[in-house]
Structure formats: structure tokens, C-alpha cells
């Protein structure tokens, strides 16, 4: 049961955002730019970083929601999403993305863990300053989203078939207040 009365029965972050649309608005804009910008990192790469950080933060709702979104961008390759969660160093992703996932994992534990050597390695593998910036901010933002979702004990759907439906809604329409003003997909 959620820690507060949201006056709605939306799942996960949607319930908290519907409860507080004033704070939801900038969070939706932030997610839209960070996860759907195609400047440098692809949408699939951005969602994989968000999924991985949510996995590390043990946030079931965000981990599976963003994993399902990444899966759509990866043409249904759920196995790759799972490999990134379990051991990205062995996953068939670029060395550049591996070096960025390493930075994201450091950020998840605390910003100061990111070293000059981590950043140098990512640059050597082709990451630009903007790629590094976006990776750090995606990882940091998921440290917020995950805590918001679990800190209020929002409802986590146990029906795994519902995750791809909500994921498609995001892939089709982006992030923003429509996720809690429109009817939930069934």
C-alpha cells in the first residue's frame, strides 16, 4: 500500500505525478530531453543507462518500465537488456557504452566515485563531453526517480504484460503529463 493517499490508482511514478502535477511537469520535461534526445547517444542507449541504474537501485517499477522501453528501441531484443543488467561488460554493446555504463554505476553509488580515469577511458572510446554529461545526469536523475517511486511505496504492477503496453505509450508519445491524464493502456 502506498505511504500516502494519491487519490488515484495509477501505477508507479504515474500515481505520484498525478498527485503533484506541479512537480511532475519539470520532471517530465527532464525525462523527455534526457531520454529522447538523439544528439550523441541513441534513445536505446539512454534507456539502457536508466534501466541499469534502476536495476542497481533495486527499483522494480523503473527497472522493468525502462527495460521495456529500451527493448522496443532495440527491436524486441530483451535478451540484450537483460545482459546489460546482469553483466554489461559481457554484453554485445559498444566499448563506448560500456565505459559510460561504468560511469553510471559509479554515479549510482555517489558522485564522487567517478574518477578522471573513468572519464578519460570513456573519451578514449569515443564519448564526447555531452555524452558524459548526459550519462551522469541520466544516472543521477534515476537516483531521484527510483527514490520517488519507492520512497512513497507506489503501486508496482505484478502483471509483467502491462509493462510493454506502457512502454509503447512512451515510445509513441514521449514523456510528459499525458501518462497520467490519459487512460492507461490495456
Amino acid at each position, binding site marked *: 500500500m502506498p505511504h500516502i493517499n494519491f487519490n488515484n490508482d495509477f501505477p508507479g511514478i504515474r500515481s505520484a505525478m498525478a498527485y503533484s502535477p506541479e512537480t511532475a511537469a519539470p520532471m517530465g520535461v527532464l525525462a523527455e530531453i534526457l531520454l529522447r534526445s538523439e544528439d550523441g547517444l541513441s534513445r536505446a542507449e539512454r534507456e539502457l543507462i536508466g534501466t541499469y541504474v534502476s536495476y542497481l537501485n533495486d527499483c522494480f517499477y523503473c527497472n522493468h518500465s525502462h527495460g521495456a522501453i529500451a527493448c522496443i528501441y532495440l527491436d524486441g531484443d530483451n535478451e540484450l537488456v537483460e545482459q546489460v543488467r546482469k553483466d554489461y561488460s559481457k554484453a554485445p554493446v559498444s566499448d563506448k557504452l560500456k565505459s559510460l555504463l561504468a560511469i553510471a554505476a559509479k554515479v549510482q553509488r555517489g558522485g564522487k566515485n567517478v574518477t578522471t580515469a573513468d572519464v578519460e577511458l570513456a573519451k578514449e572510446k569515443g564519448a564526447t563531453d555531452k555524452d558524459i*554529461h548526459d550519462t551522469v545526469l541520466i544516472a543521477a536523475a534515476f537516483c531521484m526517480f527510483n527514490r520517488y517511486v519507492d520512497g512513497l511505496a507506489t503501486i508496482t504492477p505484478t502483471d509483467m504484460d502491462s509493462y510493454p503496453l506502457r512502454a509503447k505509450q512512451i515510445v509513441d508519445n514521449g514523456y510528459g503529463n499525458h501518462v497520467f491524464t490519459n487512460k492507461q493502456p490495456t
Partner: protein
Amino acid sequence: MAHIQVEENIPGIRSLVLFRPETGKPLYDLAQVLLRGPSSLSEAERELIAAYVSYRNECIFCMSSHAAAARCLYGPDKNLVDEVLHDMQQSGVSDKLKALLHIAGKVQVLGREVTPEDIAAARVLGADDREIHDTVLIAAAFSMFNRYVDGLASFTPTDLAVYEAMGERMAKGYVLPASPEPK
């Protein structure tokens, strides 16, 4: 030196939002609505929650700047800020605020750490749903801001006077800094 090429001598998050104003705008908008928007928690109390979480995350820049903003907003009671940062449970803030700071401290560790007992304890002391929501989101947001500032190794001034001036400016609200004039 910062991990990425940002404007030199501009401290903390300001240098980062100038590097990427597209993300800077919603970050400043979020800070403004969370810390200055309508709430039954005072602006001083909300800044104190932010400073407390930043202290626990060992983010010197965010802790020093938000503590300075909280001191400014608390005015004659500004010593409360340093009391909370020294020993929250022994500080002179209300029992209700202590219960909310306790929840914020749990969120700083991880969302799941917050128990129904923590929530019940805050309610007994008068906290309502909105205040619990705002506390959790402030703590969560600073778990982001702190990591953003330190994860990119942005410039952290060591001169305390710099933070005092920053706190006075922050007390008036959060507005995305304008890009410096091209040289």
C-alpha cells in the same frame, strides 16, 4: 577541474546548466517549485531538508549553498541549520520536522528504506500527505542534484563567504542563469 569542459570559475551546478541549458531549465524549474512553490512546509524547512540530504551525500557544494539559503530564510533562528547538520535528533527543530528529516535520511539511502512506521511516526506528530510527499521528493531530488554536481566534479568553492552571498541569492528563488556574453 571538472570532468567536462565547462566555463571556468563558475561554481557547482551553475557551470553544468550553462553547459546544457536544455536540461538546466527543468532542473531549475523543479528546484523552484519544490523549494519555493506553495507548501505547508516553510521555505526555510525545505532548504534545511535539502541541506541535510546534501550533507549525508557529502556534497560540499550543495550542502554549503543550501545551508546558507536556509540560514538566510530562518533569519534569527539560523542556528537551527547548524544544529541539524551537527546532530539532527538533538537539534532545536520541531519533533514533526525531525520525523520528516528522518524520512529524508532514509530516502537518501534508498527509497525502500522508508517504512510504514516512519510514516506513521511523522503523522502522529502532525505531518500530512502533502508534507510527506514533498519531503520524499526533496530528498530524492537532492540525491540527483548531489550526484550531478559531484559526478562531473564541478568547481566547489572553499571560501565560506562565497556561499553566504549564494544563499542570499538562492533565498529569492531559482532562475536559470543566462549564458555569459560571448567573448
